[in-house]
């Protein structure tokens, strides 16, 4: 397989999880431990394949369902937490999950699952990406998407206007986690292994960067951010070790000067070209 197609397929797989994270952040649930939910997909699908002989196309949907259940359960347990209380809880979860996954013999312990059956068909990966984006796009356009946006801006005010915030929090976090699990399952079947470290903070951080840099106010922002941050280091010759410094700097730049991310900048530019004389 060519160099670029490998990069682009990796970006596809990550963008599914980034889109899931977008849905969560949109509703005000600042999840800084997304890799845990990605990992649920990878581990469930991998374990079903290696321990029970499920073919990938049967185990991936089950992994997605497991991701939804785990996400909804976590959201139900943390209903009372807002903003950064929630963020810190997800941080602690990611720390705990790496430790716990390394101790479960059924999941291969510290070495993780190996010899997971392969599913590297690009058609499946691209189709999954399109399906994930379609789910997010439809949800974002629906009345539920409007309620989600309202809740993300101000949960109490949204409640006053009749948004069932508890239900919405559980369902959107579950949906986001289901997308994350899909991404994890695809990753596991692409590389044949899944390890406790895949649940770690660094991976969660990367997903967070994709969403923030891409833009957390537009549904196609995470997709754009993921592809941009996957392809940029390949086109501009930077030391691979310095890549994360650049990512951190981008995150700071976006937070301070460009709160809507690259997607916001692109949309603003497009509006200005199509309808000159009017700012967005």
């Amino acid at each position, binding site marked *: 397989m060519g160099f670029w197609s490998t990069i682009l397929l990796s970006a596809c797989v990550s963008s599914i999880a980034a889109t899931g994270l977008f849905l969560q952040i949109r509703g005000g649930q600042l999840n800084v431990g997304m890799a845990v939910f990605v990992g649920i997909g990878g581990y469930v699908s991998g374990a079903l394949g290696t321990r029970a002989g499920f073919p990938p196309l049967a185990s991936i949907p089950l992994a997605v369902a497991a991701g939804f259940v785990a996400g909804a359960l976590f959201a139900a347990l943390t209903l009372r937490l807002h903003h950064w209380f929630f963020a810190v809880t997800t941080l602690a979860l990611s720390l705990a999950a790496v430790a716990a996954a*390394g101790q479960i013999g059924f999941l291969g312990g510290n070495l993780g699952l190996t010899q997971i059956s392969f599913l590297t068909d690009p058609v499946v990966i691209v189709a999954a990406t399109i399906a994930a984006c379609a789910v997010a796009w439809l949800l974002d356009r629906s009345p539920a998407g409007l309620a989600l946006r309202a809740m993300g801006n101000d949960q109490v005010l949204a409640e006053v206007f009749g948004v069932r915030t508890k239900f919405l929090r559980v369902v959107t976090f579950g949906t986001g986690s289901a997308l994350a699990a899909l991404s994890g399952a695809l990753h596991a079947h692409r590389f044949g292994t899944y390890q406790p470290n895949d649940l770690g903070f660094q991976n969660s951080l990367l997903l967070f960067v994709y969403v923030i840099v891409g833009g957390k106010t537009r549904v196609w922002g995470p997709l754009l951010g993921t592809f941009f941050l996957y392809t940029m280091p390949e086109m501009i010759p930077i030391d691979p070790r310095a890549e994360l410094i650049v990512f951190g700097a981008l995150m700071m730049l976006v*937070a301070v000067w460009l709160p809507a991310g690259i997607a916001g900048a692109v949309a603003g530019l497009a509006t200005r070209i199509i309808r000159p004389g009017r700012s967005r």
Partner: protein
Amino acid sequence: MLTQQLINGVLASGIYALFAVGFTMIFGIMGVLNMAHADFGMVAAVAVVWGVSAGLAPIEAVLLAVVVMLGVALLVERIALRPGRRYSGDAAIEMPLIASIGAGMILQNTAAVVFGNKAILFPIRLRGFFHIGGYLVAQGLAVSLAIAAVLLTVLEVLVMRTGFGREMRAVAQNRNAAEIMGIHSERVILLTFAITALLAGIAGCLVGLSYGLVAPYMAIPYSIKGLVAMIVGGVGSLPGAVLGALLIGVAEALTVDLLGSQLRDVGVFLVLMLVLAVRPTGLLRTAAGG
């Protein structure tokens, strides 16, 4: 065995308390979460390593590290946190949170590029044990706990008994009202930020002193545990942060005793979930907290 683990837990909590108090002070006075806070400790620790390897005496290296770390901290405050004060509402918390995560990534990965992504031997080490009543007490951790206790007592006196402390509390309570009363709130915020950075720097060096090793990514677990200790104790409360750190240390020790040392981080998560389920505002919460 259980008593030994409990001793270890209490000893380890000194360093957690230093980080947790820093987080809680920044949140109390600025209303933001500085995710790069624990990384200041890493910066100070690797600066000491660099200073000693460049031929400085340990004490000179520590002084150099303090200067470097304060410079880095004030730069982070200027670039990542200060713009957040323009916003109000949720954006005022979210923007500095995201920007400081970015700042933390820059600090960690710059250190990883300069020093290599590996554990570095810390030049000042205390690896021996005291034998007290049949129990082993790690010397480094005992010294750390003592230093932390002294620093936190000084801090409590500073906040509760001095004029500057009164200004700090006034700014934490209501920044506009404090300004009207003639308090230079920007100066108070900067000084508080420098104090918390100093605490983080000392804590980072104490990690090196106690465990003998420092690493570019060492701040991540301390950052998480400091934040958890702050929430468990009650945001904005100094005694709360200390209590939270103690609870985290003991919970870790109990998990190690009951489930094995690999699962110590699971204990931290369980304590957080338990406290948030029973008392979402934390164990001690003051009006000054956000």
